[in-house]
């Protein structure tokens, strides 16, 4: 299935049950009628364990890594570790008989699976481990479990998954109550069989996360792949948090693009979170708050209101020119993944699309999308940008992006250094040529610029240009009015490209600095590996030196350099990049207002002094401290007078979307 058919903003539009996004984010607290929107039966895990702990819930604040700004508050769904989501809790009355059969079948199959595992384990791991698995098999087959789950399913008319979950959660919670006893450890066994039964039940009918949600819920998961995150609909999933993952993962980029507040890298939280009624995602501070008390909820509601007011004010300033106090103009561009984001780019005053990622056409696809399919997508974006430039990047799949389609190669031991991105395109004309043809055809409709990712050498650039020229010749011969000159640029995201920028600059029309990969490759840090993620820093002097080299090469050659990585949209770095000589920044549209504010609040000469100082500092930490202090100083003034105040409802669609941070 093409991801476009499940494009988040498109596919939920017709759902009558979907509340407006701003409402979804802010239920208004337990006393507000807003909370009733979810109904009492719509909290899959909240009703678990009904026999204990009925009322008093203790707030827990958990620190993770902020990956997408904004605030979301509401009921929660815990997605199973296997990545499968639980179905809706309630089922129709007429479905009860079938669901009972499904329950019995699930228990039977889960028991069989556990016993098979036990036999296998006996040979491989010895009899003692096998005995544990045998015990799990027995527990799954337990007459009491089956009786209670059946009763609960029938009486409450709930799905088999929830019946099992609620019965076993009750047992697990009681066992956990035996603190200090070996019985407390039995809770883990109960959770283990719970997982076995659930995966057996869910495995029979996997569904996209949000399709099982009857109402908006915050998703908690061990991890979400970029394509899973891409499938999230902000109106149905107002926020998410994961145990794994980190700041610069593609999941983070997707979350920011979808404007879903998100926190990652929380460590083991799911067991603790599964009984929560309400959680808050603070995507600015990287916090997950379980069962927030009333004061905390009130605090976040106020924060959200302030945020929406501020965003409304900033959005109104969108069409003012972006220049520093001393008159240096900076171009702000938008990064997009989906056609639907063009509206936000225009609304928030982007001069064009600085990065149109095309991976999502390919993700989840059995076959690579054809030329016509791609053309339709590109053409729609080019037309809606109405003459403003659209920079389309050729396929950049590989590394942590999951490709449903990836020809010819087995698993790579080191995919970040393997056949990915432009290397893959150059190797496989069946992927590359249709994409280039579609891009060039779209160029007949507006200002399209072609961007090649992950260029490491001049030879690669030349090979890519040759392919492009070949395709252009074909299209002209076929009668397509392809423009005489197509603007071609490369992503500078491999240190080799930065080091060779002077030569590369002679053969391209522009550079686009992809800071995420540039940092990863320069520091040799896997940005999604939470154990080393702290070593990943945009403030590292080595990265700044490489950016300086690129800027210098561009200046000599008279071509522009855009920063389109995460760094470009962070206020902390905007001033530094300006000082380093960057005059174009491209970022997810929701970051535009805040960066505009930064640009308009500073002086170029201050930025230059800051950059010079930063370049002299030997460690990332010292650079970061410098930037932090400089930003604080630059932004002491409030953003607007009261005369400019705008009611939050003026931009209802953006409320709580983490717009500004």
């Amino acid at each position: 299935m093409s991801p476009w058919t499940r494009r988040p903003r498109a596919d939920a539009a017709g759902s009558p049950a979907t509340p407006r996004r701003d409402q979804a984010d802010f239920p208004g607290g337990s006393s507000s009628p807003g909370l009733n929107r979810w109904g009492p039966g719509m909290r899959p895990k909240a009703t678990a364990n009904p026999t204990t702990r009925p009322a008093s819930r203790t707030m827990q604040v958990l620190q993770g890594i902020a990956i997408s700004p904004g605030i979301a508050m509401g009921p929660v769904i815990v997605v199973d570790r296997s990545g499968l989501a639980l179905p809706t809790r309630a089922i129709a009355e007429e479905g009860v008989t079938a669901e009972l059969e499904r329950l019995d079948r699930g228990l039977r199959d889960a028991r069989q699976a556990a016993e098979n595992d036990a036999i296998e384990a006996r040979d491989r791991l010895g009899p003692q481990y096998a005995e544990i698995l045998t015990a799990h098999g027995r527990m799954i087959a337990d007459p009491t479990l089956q009786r209670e789950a059946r009763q609960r399913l029938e009486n409450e008319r709930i799905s088999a998954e929830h019946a099992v979950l609620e019965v076993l959660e009750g047992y697990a919670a009681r066992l956990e109550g035996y603190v200090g006893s070996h019985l407390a450890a039995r809770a883990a066994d109960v959770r283990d069989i719970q997982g076995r039964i659930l995966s057996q039940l869910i495995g029979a009918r996997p569904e996209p996360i949000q399709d099982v949600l009857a109402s908006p819920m915050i998703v908690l998961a061990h991890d979400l792949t970029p394509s899973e995150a891409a499938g999230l609909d902000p109106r149905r999933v107002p926020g998410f948090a994961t145990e794994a993952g980190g700041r610069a993962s593609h999941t983070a980029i997707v979350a920011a693009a979808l404007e879903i507040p998100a926190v990652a890298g929380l460590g083991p939280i799911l067991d603790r979170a599964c009984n929560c009624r309400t959680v808050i995602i603070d995507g600015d501070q990287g916090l997950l708050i379980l069962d927030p008390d009333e004061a905390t909820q009130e605090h976040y509601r106020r924060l959200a209101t302030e945020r929406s007011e501020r965003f409304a004010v900033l959005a109104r300033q969108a069409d003012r020119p972006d220049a520093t106090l001393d008159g240096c103009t900076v171009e702000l561009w938008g990064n997009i993944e989906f056609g639907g984001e063009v509206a936000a780019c225009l609304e928030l005053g982007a001069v064009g699309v600085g990065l149109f990622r095309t991976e999502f056409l390919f993700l989840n696809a059995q076959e690579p999308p054809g030329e016509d399919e791609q053309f339709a997508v590109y053409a729609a974006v080019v037309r809606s940008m109405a003459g403003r430039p659209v920079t389309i990047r050729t396929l950049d799949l590989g590394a942590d992006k999951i490709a449903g389609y990836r020809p010819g190669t087995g698993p790579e031991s080191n995919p970040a250094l393997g056949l990915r991105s432009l290397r893959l395109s150059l190797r496989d004309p069946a992927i590359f040529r249709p994409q280039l043809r579609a891009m060039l055809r779209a160029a007949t409709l507006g200002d399209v610029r072609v961007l090649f990712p992950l260029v490491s050498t001049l030879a690669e650039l030349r090979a890519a240009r040759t392919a492009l020229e070949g395709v252009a010749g074909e299209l002209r011969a076929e009668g397509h009015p392809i423009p005489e000159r197509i603007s071609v640029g490369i992503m500078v995201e491999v240190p080799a490209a930065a080091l060779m920028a002077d030569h590369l600059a002679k053969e391209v029309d522009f550079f686009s600095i992809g800071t995420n990969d540039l940092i990863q490759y320069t520091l040799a840090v896997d940005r999604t590996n939470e154990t080393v993620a702290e070593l990943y820093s945009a403030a590292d002097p080595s990265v700044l030196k490489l950016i300086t080299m690129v800027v210098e090469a561009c200046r000599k050659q008279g071509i522009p350099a855009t920063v389109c990585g995460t760094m470009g949209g962070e206020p902390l770095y905007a001033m530094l990049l300006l000082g380093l000589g960057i005059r174009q920044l491209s970022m997810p549209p929701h970051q535009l207002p805040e960066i505009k504010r930064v640009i308009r609040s500073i002086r170029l000469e201050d930025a230059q002094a800051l950059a010079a100082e930063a370049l002299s500092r030997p460690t990332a930490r010292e650079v970061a401290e410098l930037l932090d202090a400089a930003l604080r100083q630059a932004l002491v003034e409030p953003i607007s007078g009261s005369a400019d105040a705008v009611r939050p409802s003026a931009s209802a669609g953006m409320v709580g979307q983490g717009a500004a941070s």
Partner: protein
Amino acid sequence: MSEDTTVACRQVEITNSLGLHVRPAMKFVELASRFPCEVRVRHNDNEFNGKSLLELTMMAAECGTRLELVARGPDALAAIEALAELVSARFYEDEDGEPVEAAPPPEPGR
């Protein structure tokens, strides 16, 4: 057989040092399940299904706990006999919960 409403009771004491943890409980359940009669275990005025590993685990019977076994229905006497023997033999486990090699396999008496 279906008319058989024999009821058999027996007081037992858990004497293995780790109490009725998972492995002994599993042995108990396995043995109890071989008999057609109902098997109940009474502890502190609560009654548990002797064929349910979950319920026996929840019973949290430590070493020294006194239990009343109740069997109701066909083969009730034999069931009580076998189960009481299993308990008094400390589930054929030593102090560390390791299986005692010389233990005779528990058979449903007849």
